[in-house]
């Protein structure tokens, strides 16, 4: 699924990285625990999270995940947006809850 489709399905606002929206992701992961993301993520290209701090951006860089979706209307700080811009990570924010965000993407076929 293209990241642009992810944004559409989640009615998300893209905060940075719109030039990468044509990139594909085959699966996603929802977590507020970066420890778990670092330990358990395999090839999921997208992280959905309610956690807002710079480590979210660095964790996804280490895992080669190209996109972070902040759920429940959480918005990253300017510093985080700048960091993501520098490393080419797409950031989006959606008003939907974690549960509904994951559900919608799953129903649309992502990671199935």
């Amino acid at each position, binding site marked *: 699924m293209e990241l642009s489709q992810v944004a559409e399905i989640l009615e998300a606002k893209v905060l940075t990285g719109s030039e990468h929206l044509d990139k594909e992701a085959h699966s996603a992961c929802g977590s507020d625990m970066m420890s778990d993301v670092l330990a358990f993520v395999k090839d999921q290209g997208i992280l959905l999270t309610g956690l807002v701090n710079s480590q979210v951006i660095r964790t996804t860089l*280490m895992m080669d995940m190209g996109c972070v979706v902040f759920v429940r209307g959480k918005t990253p700080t300017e510093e985080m947006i700048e960091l993501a811009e520098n490393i080419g990570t797409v950031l989006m924010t959606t008003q939907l809850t974690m549960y509904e965000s994951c559900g919608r993407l799953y129903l649309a076929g992502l990671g199935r």
Partner: protein
Amino acid sequence: MAENETLNFHFDVDGNDFTSAGEASVKVKKLMRQLGFSPELTRRVSIAMYEGEINMVIHANGGTADVYVDEDCLRVVLADEGPGIADVETAMQEGYSTAPDNIRALGFGAGMGLPNMKNYSDEMSIDSVVGKGTTIELKFKVS
């Protein structure tokens, strides 16, 4: 550069600033990409080093990170003068963590870091003295 010379990259890891934790690992990831290492090795090194860097910030008030690049081996040495680890074997167990709630609220403290570092490296050694500090060496074969 002479053929068998070792490249060394040194980083100071600030223990007072959680926000900047991981900056050294970001730099190493960029360096490895520039030096032409495989994405797979780059990912393993950066994840393991990042776990170690975060540990130094949340458990040891910072330290230093050194990356040594040889022809057939890449080494990451993380050294701190923190409280040390009394029982390394226990600390290595998945799920063991002494991280307080405020660290958990930041997304860390699941007790997965050290086991993860072991999983992602080819060799890991921990040298820790209570009250003196901890030095962790990670080795990665370069094929």
